[in-house]
């Protein structure tokens, strides 16, 4: 399974080693710092989550005790928050790294502006069958 930046719904701006992501449909925004920046970059062309985690482990020479759990959590947040969307095939790996030194991924989620999303309830995005799609068990009205 491969994932990529959800360009249709998510703007990403990078300043001084930090990414700010804005999800237009959900009314949420995010700050990515440290290794989360590299995780995000690795998905720009489409990539497999396990392979991204492996590349970052290799890059920073991480052991089983340090890093893998944080990387897995970070990637899962990016998927769960719909910042990444599924694609059919991977693209070339990204060689742009933010740092030489390992620092655990930091992802901050901001939902204080969700009330401003009055046009649309939250929908699950399905890039293959169309958008928006009613979330299973959700309101979706």
């Amino acid at each position, binding site marked *: 399974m491969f994932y990529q930046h959800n*360009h*249709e719904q998510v*703007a990403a*701006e990078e*300043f*001084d080693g*930090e990414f*700010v992501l*804005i999800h*237009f*449909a959900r*009314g949420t*925004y995010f*700050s990515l710092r440290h290794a989360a920046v590299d995780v995000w970059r690795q998905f720009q062309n489409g990539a497999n989550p396990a392979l991204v985690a492996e590349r970052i482990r290799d890059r920073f020479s991480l052991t089983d005790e340090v890093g893998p759990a944080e990387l897995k959590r970070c990637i899962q947040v990016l998927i769960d928050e719909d910042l990444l969307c599924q694609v059919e095939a991977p693209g070339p790996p990204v060689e742009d790294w933010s740092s030489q030194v390992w620092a655990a991924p930091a992802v901050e989620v*901001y939902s*204080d*502006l969700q009330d*401003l*999303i009055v*046009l*649309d*309830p939250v*929908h699950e995005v399905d*890039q293959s069958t*169309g*958008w*928006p*799609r009613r979330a299973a068990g959700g309101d979706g009205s």
Partner: protein
Amino acid sequence: MELAAPTARAQVDPQAGGFCAAVLELAEQGSRTATREHAFRLCDGLVTLRAAGTLFEEHLTRALRHARVAPTSVQAPELRVFALDGLAAGGRPPPGWPFPYANPRHLERLHVTRDRRFYLKLDEDTRTWHVFDRARGRAAIWTEDASRLPDWEQSFPLRTLLNWLLAPSPSTLAHAAVVCEGERGLLLAGAGGSGKSTTTVACLEIGLTTCGDDFVAVTGGVAPRAHALFDTIKLDERSLARFPHLAAHVANSGSPPGTKARIHLSELSPPGLRPSCWLTAIVVPRVTPGETTRIAPLAKTAALRALVPSTVFLTRGAEIETAAKLGALVRRLPTHELRIGGTPAEAALGLRALLAQGSR
């Protein structure tokens, strides 16, 4: 003319065009009863408006008085708007939302075709349609009953259409205030309650001017500019109490408790509204009780978080373009935090000092 609901998913985009054309034609026909045409210069572009229904006309034009130009001087406006109050036009109600869930640019009650030509939005609460055909430079606003429109919408009429109009240009709407001294201005960005409006009024009190309190247009590039769109300032009860002389100018004094007071700067003397200015910095106000009021450097990412999410969440349909343009603006301009620990007057003096620094 009947407005048929589309049925086949694959035909959504062409049908959006047909639906848009039909609404435009109905609104254009309906607005022929209007007694006059209005013309405005907004963000260096010309917009004309013909509205059927006296109440709707007042609703759509009061906050734009500062930008009026003679309609006879307008040969080729960027946008012609036809507005229809269904009740005033013989009880013709707007149609319901006809589009199925279909393509990636299709949100419920907001549809933008893939080629960005047609924009359609329905506010279900007030039964108000906005439609825009970029290729023809025409737009329609069709509401069921203008008397049911919420008061706050009078603060920024045509906002939805201006947002769509500006999408492919170097300009964009920004959810921000602007305070100016001479031709130089500061963009004040921050969510509701951050002190933007109170600070803006405090700046007017010491002789500065403004390009707007809630929404302005900004144009990027090497020398970014801000443009006034609406002449309104909205103050909550507490803020209004700080400026008691403004109480006589509240335009919506009969509104329910809790409604922010709406003041039209064009109706004050002096008005304090400036059509445009050069932006020299972005400032994010923050109320910090117990501290001395001061201006401190602010990380670009913090300024971006204060400016971009609220703008794109409040101005739907051009999110990708808006985020990119405001992101570029944040990269270009110095960013500061205004820590308001004292009175609004102290904050205003701090901003005046910052404007003076920029002019050296």
